[in-house]
């Protein structure tokens, strides 16, 4: 005698059984028992104990959330800093062109540091910073680095109010610090990328 398959029973459970299956189940005690067992199994699955996370993942979520917020703030302040630096440079060119000649080396170093910083920013984009899951420790390191970079960007943005002659050396120092921190940030991201094999 032909019996219902598990697909037939599943369809009967969903009220979608074939005509044959619906007729068969009325007269076949074996298939009735199988259908009942299926109902019982599903009821038991629903009654399985709730599994609880072994560790608190909120600190890691919060660290990533805060690092993303810091990055957004940094992007905004960096944009402001860039505009301020451009305005400053325009002012120097118009008002005191001789200063440029005296501090040619500093300017070369400044340009180099800015280029390195931009290159590192590009490198960072390769690590899908928004889509990656970080460990709590790694996320905290990244958040700290980003906060420090954000602080430097803030200082760069306010430098325009200082004496122009002192400013070049200060700028070079800050941009070098920024490059160093960017390198650490890229390393932190790259290490995690290798770890997950992506």
């Amino acid at each position, binding site marked *: 005698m032909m019996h*219902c398959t*598990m697909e037939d029973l599943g369809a009967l459970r969903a009220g979608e059984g074939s005509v044959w299956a619906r007729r068969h189940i009325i007269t076949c005690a074996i298939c009735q028992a199988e259908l009942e067992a*299926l109902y019982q*199994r599903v009821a038991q*699955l629903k009654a*399985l104990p709730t*599994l609880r*996370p072994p560790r608190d993942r909120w600190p890691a*979520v919060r660290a*990533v959330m805060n690092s993303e917020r810091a990055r957004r703030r940094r992007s905004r302040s960096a944009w402001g800093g860039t505009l301020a630096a451009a305005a400053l440079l325009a002012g120097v060119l118009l008002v005191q062109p001789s200063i440029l000649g005296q501090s040619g080396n500093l300017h070369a170093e400044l340009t180099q540091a800015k280029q390195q910083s931009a290159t590192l920013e590009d490198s960072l984009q390769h690590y899908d910073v928004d889509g990656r899951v970080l460990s709590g420790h790694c996320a905290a390191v990244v958040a700290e680095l980003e906060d420090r970079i954000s602080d430097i960007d803030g200082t760069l943005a306010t430098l325009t109010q200082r004496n122009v002659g002192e400013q070049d050396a200060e700028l070079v120092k800050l941009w070098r610090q920024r490059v160093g921190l960017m390198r650490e940030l890229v390393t932190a991201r790259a290490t995690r990328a290798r770890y997950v094999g992506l």
Partner: protein
Amino acid sequence: MTVSLAVPDVLVARAQAGDEAALEALYRAFETPVYNLARRMLRRPEDAEDVLQETFLEVVRNIKQYRGEGHLWGWVRRIASTKALMRIRRDQLRATESLDDEPGGRAMHVGANLDLERAFEVLSETSRAVVWLHDVEGYTHEEIAEQMGRSVSFSKSQLARAHARLRRMLNEDVGGATL
């Protein structure tokens, strides 16, 4: 798992405004159901933990897009199940695991007296996901097929095969039929 988690609208509004305490309250409200869902679908506990983290990162990033249509748990659960299914798919691609392959099953003697929870653990992640989403979470085959990027018949056949396998592993004797 039946979840009836009522989240006050004011809490959602605060979370949407970026209030960290409100976001943490949402995490605390849903961490266990999200982990349970992911853990039932995935074999490795650490993968379920990663899904928990990924889910709440997405919740934090996109909570503003939640318009209050339907229960918040439904929205969070959808994110969590999608993340878990993505992980299953990615692992299958990496390990070129056949959809029919059930790694734990080889060591398990058919007919051994297992309890349901252990038997369920033996199923492949694809089978577990389909069984859990359909039988416990109440997803339709159409919804599962859409989330898995598969056909409705795939979902139905996975469910039937998973139940047939569970039945064999549990050594159920309900009258001598062989399914």
